[in-house]
């Protein structure tokens, strides 16, 4: 059933000779002041030669610790039990000297952050050659030749020059490919990649994943891919294990796990994911509660407190990983049988054919704070009440302002926004030696009650644009107006009354709340700034906490006592405290785990509907944008390249960059992900300090490189394309734009 997507040579059954890595009842416990922390519990899996196994789980599920234990890289105080046999050799408990012979030679690891996994004081060539020399007695010359060969394999352009460069001269994607080159230097049998693309932009992620696949093909190594991204897993591996609270709770071929999950957690994760191939009208279904504290694990199933299916048995007896072949034969999984689908759930049979929406509620209240469906219902009703009150209050304020106009009014309008940040020389004079062209001519309208998404990769100027719109940084040129009133040039004092209407929600739920203030004080601060009295503010804080789905009794706590999703809700409550009309949301969910992200997205959708807010939604995540936005504007290197309604943009993207962006987003659907058409862009985003002439995307444009004639290319090089209307408001900035259907 699964074979057609596997590499042909890897489809053989579980021949014991074929197993390269066998992990058997591996447990890791960290001693701590408050008692032992069981980070990994009884993890077992087998990896066949050349196979790709994905391990997915949310933060804290133990997925990284497992692989660190296998590599022998855990701190000395970690207690590791169980075994891991690499090509038949036991590697748990080896001395440092012994395991050094194995590491790099038979098993290699790729870490998340390419910035820190390379040594900044040595050249790329030296570092790759060093990896070769560590295990092979060859001449330095031969090692360098091998380094060159490896750089070619991972697809680094002009490798000869790169050999002599230092890590800081390379971009993130390039560095990660160097790390892959080092990992494959000695043709290991197993490569463990721990979140190898999490720190990278999507178009670069596609390149790096490609390099990883090439490395596998070249060395025939088996791959363990650890990630939280279900889309990446769907496209890259043949088998997948889902980890939760230190255990593997479901394992099987990707198609089985994605299409027929048999553990409520896996089902919930898939249901909480906004999908590029999904429908906007479908509500996301967050999972109740939060992952258990490892120190205080529940007695029975680790997922039982959050599980809508949980019964008495689940709270008493921890389910084992058993076969899910549909019939009543629930025998324990045969050791080493690697083609079966196993799940750790007492009632996995009931999940046959289940959809996430059958089990989980598409709620918007803080799911981390409630434990049962009844509590959820009471919380939901109190949220509804708070909304009622809030609406009445804001109505009283705004009734006089808005007269019955039928056409949605333009609230925020930006015309030709330009922001250049000067680059200054070091030293006393600080002369201007150049400038970063962060935003170069952006125009947009934000209308009443709509969500406009600003999308782009890092460094494209989307956050700068958001701040320019709020007049938080001074613009170099251009115009911003709010309800017809120009904002540029207003002093802080003149801006203050307008700030009531324009509020901001931040990406990082940890940095955006003052750690020294209580939650009540944080939420009340905007009101205090605007001179609203204390008694008034206190009631309002309670109401706001209710409104965003948090327990209003928790106002006197400090931010560090809350989890990420809850803090993000506090940030939203603060932004709402002055009854704003416009919320600028700067990557509001990208720092959150998917099961929590879903709840915050639902909250934002509800708030908009109930309170009539306008959102400017800044994000790099097209799946989220597709779910929440009415209109989308795609940015690249400070320019807008395409803007349209969400439907138009996703069904008929016209600009090559938009097409590449959409096609680079991994779909959490194994078949679609592997069969869909791909538009791969090469290279990295050029520096905004020195953008290419003409069309800024031309250096990476697949159309420019492969399709256009020389005469056409000249136009791209010389003439910056204007944002042109293609009828029905769909505009793009490409001389040769052409609609492509991608999803």
């Amino acid at each position: 059933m699964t074979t057609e997507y596997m590499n042909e040579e890897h489809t053989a059954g579980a021949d014991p000779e074929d197993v390269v890595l066998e992990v058997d009842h591996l447990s890791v416990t960290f001693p701590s002041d408050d008692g032992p922390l069981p980070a990994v519990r009884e993890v077992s899996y087998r990896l066949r030669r050349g196979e790709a196994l994905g391990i997915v789980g949310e933060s804290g599920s133990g997925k990284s610790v497992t692989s660190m234990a296998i590599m022998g890289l855990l701190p000395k105080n970690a207690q590791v039990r169980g075994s891991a046999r690499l090509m038949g050799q036991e590697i748990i408990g080896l001395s440092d000297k012994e395991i050094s012979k194995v590491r790099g030679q038979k098993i290699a690891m790729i870490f998340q952050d390419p910035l820190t996994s390379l040594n900044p004081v040595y050249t790329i060539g030296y570092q790759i050659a060093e990896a070769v020399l560590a295990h092979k007695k060859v001449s330095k010359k031969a090692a360098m030749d091998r380094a060159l060969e490896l750089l070619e394999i991972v697809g680094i352009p002009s490798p000869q020059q790169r050999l002599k460069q230092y890590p800081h001269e390379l971009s993130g994607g390039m560095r990660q490919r160097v790390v892959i080159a080092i990992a494959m230097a000695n043709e290991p049998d197993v490569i463990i990649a721990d979140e190898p693309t999490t720190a990278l932009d999507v178009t670069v992620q596609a390149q790096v994943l490609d390099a990883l696949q090439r490395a596998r093909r070249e060395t025939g190594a088996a791959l363990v891919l650890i990630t939280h991204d279900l889309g990446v897993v769907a496209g890259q591996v043949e088998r997948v294990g889902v980890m939760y609270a230190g255990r593997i709770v479901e394992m099987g071929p990707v198609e089985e796990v994605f299409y027929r999950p048999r553990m409520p957690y896996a089902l919930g994760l898939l249901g909480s994911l906004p999908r590029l191939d999904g429908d906007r009208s479908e509500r996301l279904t967050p999972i109740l509660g939060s992952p258990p504290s490892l120190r205080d694990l529940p007695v029975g199933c680790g997922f039982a407190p959050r599980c809508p299916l949980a019964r008495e048995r689940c709270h008493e007896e921890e389910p084992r990983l058993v076969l899910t072949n549909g019939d009543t034969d629930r025998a324990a999984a045969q050791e080493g049988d690697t083609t079966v689908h196993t799940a750790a759930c007492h009632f996995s049979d009931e999940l046959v054919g289940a959809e996430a929406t059958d089990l989980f509620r598409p709620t918007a209240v803080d799911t981390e704070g409630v434990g049962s469906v009844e509590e959820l219902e009471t919380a939901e009703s109190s949220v509804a009440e708070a909304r009622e009150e809030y609406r009445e209050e804001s109505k009283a304020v705004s009734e006089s302002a808005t007269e019955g106009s039928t056409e949605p009014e333009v609230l925020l309008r930006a015309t030709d926004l330009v922001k250049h940040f000067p680059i200054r020389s070091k030293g006393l004079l600080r002369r201007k030696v150049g400038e970063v062209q962060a935003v170069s001519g952006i125009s947009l309208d934000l209308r009443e009650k709509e969500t406009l998404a600003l999308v782009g990769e890092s460094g494209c100027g989307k956050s700068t644009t958001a701040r320019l719109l709020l007049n938080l940084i001074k613009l170099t040129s251009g115009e911003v107006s709010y309800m017809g009133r120009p904002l540029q040039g207003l002093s802080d004092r003149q801006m203050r009354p307008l700030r009531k209407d324009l509020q901001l929600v931040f990406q990082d739920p940890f940095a955006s709340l003052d750690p020294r203030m209580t939650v009540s004080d944080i939420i009340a601060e905007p009101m205090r700034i605007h001179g609203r009295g204390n008694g008034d503010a206190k009631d309002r804080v309670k109401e706001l906490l209710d409104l965003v789905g948090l327990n209003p009794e928790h106002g006197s706590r400090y931010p560090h006592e809350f989890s990420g999703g809850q803090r993000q809700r506090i940030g939203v409550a603060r932004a709402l405290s002055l009854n704003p009309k416009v919320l600028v949301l700067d990557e509001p969910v990208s720092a959150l785990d998917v099961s929590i992200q879903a709840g915050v997205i639902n909250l934002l959708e509800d708030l908009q509907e109930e309170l009539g807010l306008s959102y400017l939604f800044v994000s790099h995540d097209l799946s989220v944008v597709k779910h929440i936005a009415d209109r989308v504007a795609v940015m690249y290197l400070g320019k807008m390249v395409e803007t349209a309604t969400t439907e138009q943009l996703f069904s008929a993207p016209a600009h090559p960059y938009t097409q590449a962006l959409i096609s680079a987003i991994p779909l959490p659907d194994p078949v679609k992900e592997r069969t869909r058409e791909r538009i791969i862009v090469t290279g990295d985003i050029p520096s905004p300090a020195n953008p290419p002439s003409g069309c800024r995307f031309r250096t990476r444009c697949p159309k420019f490189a492969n399709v256009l004639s020389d005469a056409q290319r000249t136009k791209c090089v010389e003439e910056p394309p204007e944002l042109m209307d293609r009828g029905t408001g769909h505009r793009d900035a490409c001389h040769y734009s052409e609609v492509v259907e991608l999803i």
Partner: protein
Amino acid sequence: MSENATPGSARRDPAKKVKDSADRTQLQTIMIRFLRHRPAMISLIVLALIALFAFVGPFFWMWDHTVYREIPSNQPPGGVHPLGTSAAGHDVLGQLMRGAQQTLKVAFTVSLLSTIVGSMWGATAGYYGGRVDAFMMRVVDIFLIVPLLVAAAAIAGNTGAGASWYAIALIIAIFSWATIARVVRGVVLSLREQEFVEAARASGASAPWIIIRHLLPNAAGPIIVAATLLVAIAILAEAGMSFLGLGIQLPDISLGQMIGSARTAVSTRPWLFYPPGVLLVLICLTINFIGDGLRDALDPRQTRVRR
């Protein structure tokens, strides 16, 4: 703090009510945290006793710090002079009380003045950055490169200010606020990039509001550490000035001056050296511990309130 108890746990189980900051006001929480910090509490008691000894003691002790004819010179501790007497005919206990009093007054005045001026200066420079920062920090540099003792000596020598403790405190403070300004600026430079500062700006907060409500409270840790260090530095500076004849002058006395004048008598007449020495070390130590306790109590993330 790493107990990972999300606030949800209270909602989930109302019977098991976690007694943490939820039920108290901020000030109460800080007080309770401080009271539970054992070294700080012990230090606070010891320091209070020293202050009592220095400020109230003289009312109950028959000798003050001046020379009396009827006091025999060079008497070892015992009898009517529990800490002995000096060569000139001082009662050491009487001197110690007055000395500790003067030293404490100078040290605390210096620390308070420098901390207030220094942290405001540093926070302002750090928050505005750019040219404002460059100018303000050059001023700081000027105060930093002048050796404190030399400058203080020059001013005191020329103005004859050495007579009173507050003049000395002022002179020392003028040359010691700069260190605090530097520390605070460094902290503020990184704090101002935090999103919560931008959040306040986006709500329309003014610069003074942000500096006072957000930046200084978050810099409290380093500020307190620097302030406690300053107490020790001020005591040493005062002792140095007294030694040079520019600080508190005889017949008035300070701990530094007592130690200075007893420097040749450490082995022959130890009672002249050790009492002021031990007292000085005690003052510095207790202040450091109190600083630690304050820092921990003010930081909501440090330790949870235990029952």
